[in-house]
């Protein structure tokens, strides 16, 4: 069991409605109970973390219990924060007549497709970097599979993007240094006037700012990716229930995760029917469940699996989270062969 909780980042994913938030909360409280300082982060724009702890959480870190802090990333807040910073930057650089143009431009960007996703990635990357210093364990309660896979693949994609941008920028810098070696005289040809004329001094300055920005971006993306792919630090847990669609989706998810080299540590099979319920209806359900369980054992034979039973009540507060957490702890202990 320890090897799972000894990781620094746990990502809990799966199809919508299978109990990701519950399992994430259970893992975080298990860590907190062991005295680790834990942060649980919801990356699903439709947050349910607050609902499970029966209290509002929001986009600031909120203490939930001893050693346990919660946070719901709000892509809109993050986008606004980013855009406002860009706006301030722009205002510094352009004439006041253009302020309105800039505002208009930035409003469009705020609602552009991909903005919320990028803002989310930015925050997750930040939290991973900070989390390493500030928490023993960060559990990410992720959005349904599709979103999350995309989010987890973004560091790679964006790292490649920033590499490419930097390569172009470096090439330009290289040419500039060659030019400087050849003498700083202005060329006589008018067609090149724009390069060596007065703006040059300023654009030389902005070139180094561009470089600094790109380098910072690149560092952030590469770092997030490195942390994500390090299976001593990060693990992905797939939650599913023994039903057809979640099994199919988990299979797809696994394929995608492999493609991006993201290590999958375990699967949690949630909401198993209890053994001691009698009746024709339940017997039939259990028969179906047994079939699906066999399918799961067969399909995901290589992955460690933990089982959590269906409880008689919803998970609605910290006490019920702790109950799941104890059940999960038993499972972890059992499968690792410890007493």
């Amino acid at each position, binding site marked *: 069991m320890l090897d799972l909780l000894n990781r620094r980042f746990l990502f809990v994913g799966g199809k919508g409605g299978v109990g990701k938030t519950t399992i994430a909360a259970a893992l975080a409280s298990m860590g907190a109970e062991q005295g680790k300082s834990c942060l649980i982060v919801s990356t699903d724009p439709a947050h349910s973390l607050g609902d499970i702890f029966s209290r509002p959480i929001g986009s600031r870190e909120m203490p939930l219990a001893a050693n346990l802090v919660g946070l719901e990333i709000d892509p809109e807040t993050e986008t606004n924060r980013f855009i406002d910073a860009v706006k301030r930057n722009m205002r510094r650089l352009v004439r006041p007549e253009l302020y309105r143009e800039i505002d208009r431009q930035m409003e469009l960007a705020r609602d552009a497709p991909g903005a919320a996703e990028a803002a989310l990635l930015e925050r997750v990357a930040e939290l991973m970097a900070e989390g390493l210093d500030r928490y023993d364990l960060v559990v990410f309660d992720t959005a349904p599979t599709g979103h999350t896979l995309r989010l987890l693949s973004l560091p790679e994609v964006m790292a490649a993007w920033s590499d490419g941008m930097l390569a172009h920028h470096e090439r330009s810098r290289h040419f500039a240094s*060659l030019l400087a070696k050849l003498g700083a005289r202005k060329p006589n040809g008018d067609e090149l006037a724009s390069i060596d004329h007065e703006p040059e001094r300023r654009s030389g300055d902005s070139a180094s700012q561009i470089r600094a920005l790109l380098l910072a971006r690149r560092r952030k993306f590469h770092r997030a990716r490195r942390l994500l792919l390090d299976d001593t630090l990060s693990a992905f847990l797939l939650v599913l229930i023994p039903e057809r669609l979640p099994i199919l989706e988990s299979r797809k998810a696994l394929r995608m995760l492999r493609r991006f080299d993201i290590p999958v540590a375990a699967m949690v099979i949630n909401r198993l029917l209890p053994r001691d319920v009698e009746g024709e209806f339940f017997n039939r359900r259990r028969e179906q469940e047994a079939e699906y369980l066999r399918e799961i054992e067969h399909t995901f034979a290589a992955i460690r699996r933990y089982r959590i039973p269906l409880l008689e009540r919803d998970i609605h507060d910290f006490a019920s989270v702790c109950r799941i957490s104890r059940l999960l702890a038993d499972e972890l202990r059992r499968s690792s062969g410890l007493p």
Partner: protein
Amino acid sequence: MTHKKRQHASPAGGFRRAVQQLETAAEEYYRAPYRGAIARAKRDEDDLFMLFVFAEMLGIPNPAAYFTLELQPLLLERFHDWHRRMGMEHSPLDHFRCC
């Protein structure tokens, strides 16, 4: 060329200046084409970079649009130079006017 300078240092300052001018002119004669070519290569590289940053605005979908936003303020100047160079008095983009 340093020993040349030393040789003609004392006799006539005028002659020395003339030699220097000749040297500069010769250097310029050889360097100018290189400088032109490199300046052009740099400009093309910069234009391409700018295209990446402003792609979304030009109607080219860019998955990294969000992250190019922060670069745009730094490229305003270059963008202005570019559209002037392309023979457009004012910014060709309705929603992005630098002048």
